[in-house]
């Protein structure tokens, strides 16, 4: 996260590769399921031996025995509809929810989150020197309409995507944040409105951030969890 600050985001999980290294982010949408982006995974039709999700800590590399840390193996990956760039990851067993680990809400189906809604992105990824990569960083970003966003991206932003503003200083996600959440406030709850996907440039001054619009795929998400 470029130009973020250390913060708390109990639904953000760290996805670990076979060597135990953090490589992408994800969001807890129920005790057994995490959403992330397909871009982080080589295939949806293989097992995930050795991969895991870590939650319950603000540290990218928590010390052995740190209280509250949960590291749960991933047992299944399900690809979303082709243009969604989303994947659902099943945990081997349910995560224990507490004040450090919770699930984020899912938006209504096909809901468009209003402009200027207060949102935030979170991750343990690259900060480009603007922060401490060993802890979870959170950045606040307001929603902008696709129409507004398309002025910058010359009409390339699609309906299943959404944008946030990056201010002049440049705020945004970067390497190893991919798959993490764009969480937006709705009354006193936080809702998963977007999933971070790779973009050319990180937190580039004046460049909006693009996310996959989760509300377009809520029906698929629920179906996977039910099936």
């Amino acid at each position, binding site marked *: 996260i*470029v130009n973020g600050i*250390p913060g*708390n*985001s*109990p639904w953000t999980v760290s996805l670990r*590769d*076979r060597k135990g290294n953090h*490589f992408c982010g994800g969001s807890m949408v129920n005790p057994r399921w995490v959403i992330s982006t*397909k*871009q*982080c*995974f*080589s*295939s*949806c*039709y*293989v*097992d995930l031996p*050795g991969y895991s999700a870590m939650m319950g800590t*603000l*540290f990218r590399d928590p010390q052995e025995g740190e209280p509250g840390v949960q590291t749960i193996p991933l047992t299944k990956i*399900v*690809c979303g*509809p*082709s243009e*969604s760039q989303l994947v659902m990851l099943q945990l081997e067993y349910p995560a224990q929810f507490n*004040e450090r680990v*919770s*699930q*984020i*809400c*899912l*938006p*209504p*189906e096909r*809901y*468009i*989150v*209003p402009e200027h809604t207060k949102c935030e992105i979170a991750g343990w990824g*690259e900060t480009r020197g603007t922060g401490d990569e060993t802890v979870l960083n959170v950045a606040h970003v307001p929603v902008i309409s696709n129409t507004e966003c398309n002025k910058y991206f010359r009409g390339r932003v699609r*309906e299943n995507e959404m944008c946030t503003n990056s201010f002049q200083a440049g705020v945004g996600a*970067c*390497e190893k944040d*991919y798959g993490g959440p764009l969480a937006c406030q709705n*009354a*006193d*709850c*936080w*809702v998963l409105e977007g999933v971070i996907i*790779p*973009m*050319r*440039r*990180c*937190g580039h001054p004046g460049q909006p951030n693009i996310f996959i619009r989760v509300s*377009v795929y809520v*029906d698929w998400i629920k*179906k996977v969890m*039910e*099936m």
Partner: protein
Amino acid sequence: LRSSLNDYQRSEGRELVPTAWNAARMQMLPGLNLEECASRCSQSQDCRAFNYEIRPIGTCKHLPWVADGSNAEVKRNVNCDLYEKKVYVRKCIVGKGEDYRGKVFTTKSGLTCQQWWSKFPHDHRWTPSPTNGLELNYCRNPDGDRIGPWCYTTDPERRYESCNIPQCKDEVCITCNGEDYRGQVDHTESGKECQRWDQQFPHQHIYQPEKYPDKSLDDNYCRNPDASPVPWCYTTDPETERESCDISKCTEVLVEKGQRSSFTTNCFRGRGEDYRGKVNETASGIPCQRWDIQVPHRHPFIPNIYECKGLEENYCRNPDGSEAPWCFTSVPEMRTVLCLQIKRCADDIEAEDCYHENGKNYRGVVRKTRKGITCQKWNVNTPHQTRINPRTHPDANLTENYCRNPDGDQHGPWCYTTDPKTEFDYCAIKQCAGEKVPLTETVETVEFSECGKRDDRPQPTRLR
């Protein structure tokens, strides 16, 4: 610290079942663990293999033969692993091959070998015994001949001749850095014996076979799971953790650069090992470091050692099986970065039909998922138990295994699949041109419960 299992080649989920007429020759040894079962077999003169049943309890069954198709048959059994003495199943030799126990019985020039028990046409002084392996007319090396296993021939004109059995290090050659090597060399270049990959002694390590199924970390054979320059193994010498293995390089001419059909340039498939595009910076715009220099980051990926990894210039590449193409960056503070901004190649198959709106009324005959997997029939429950079927949705026309959309999925017709790993998937059908379901505008008040709650009080105590 050498495990007796080092003498054996394991076949997981297999059982050697003797034919009815010699089942009596199988010896049950209750109460032995796997290591004890192996060491007992090694000490026994007529034990050549054993079945070790893992479940319900460890059961050891010694067998006087290996799977050679005549005395016994290999069968699937998820509760059992078959261990065969390497010397009886190996098709190559180590050193002079004095322990070769294979079944080759012709010489280098094609002459049939003379039976060892016979003195005709050539008289000799060797007498078969239970321990010297002089069985029938198989090639053997009882006198430690430098060339390797040999035999007396049935040609009166030719007393004896070598059988030309290859050295294991030549039997299977390696290309590039040998990460695809699946041969049977089990000693290092200095002759140290390799440790089994599925054991943690004498050396603890992270390369457990079940975690790296794609690396074929079988038994104690040399392998290359971490993109080292050549295959290697942990050794049974407590003083030497790991060492490279001496395996011949293949001599065929390498495929010319950029010609292998699986190479891609503007997207990547799988982990991107075949990506040969020209992206040479990180998503955040930091230039990558050239592969052929060691500044600012020293590294082992020297282009001419990894000649088939396409390590040109400073392009994103994946020489070591990472999650995606990556590169060393040109800034000292950031050593490597995954180039996940490179698009993944679409791996859907060609759509075979189209549907209107959300496809709820689709009644076509496509029965394949977007990945080309055949659909499961709606009225069966294998490999997947169906929650949606002709009984629950009688008028959804759930016939055969045709793609349908009984639950009005916004993303189109789908089906249960015949792939056990994939319960359901969307089909190789696209939306008919020009049809889009608009997104809903802002919904008024939405109630959430049991989710999205966070303790937003300031938390200075959480940081070290």
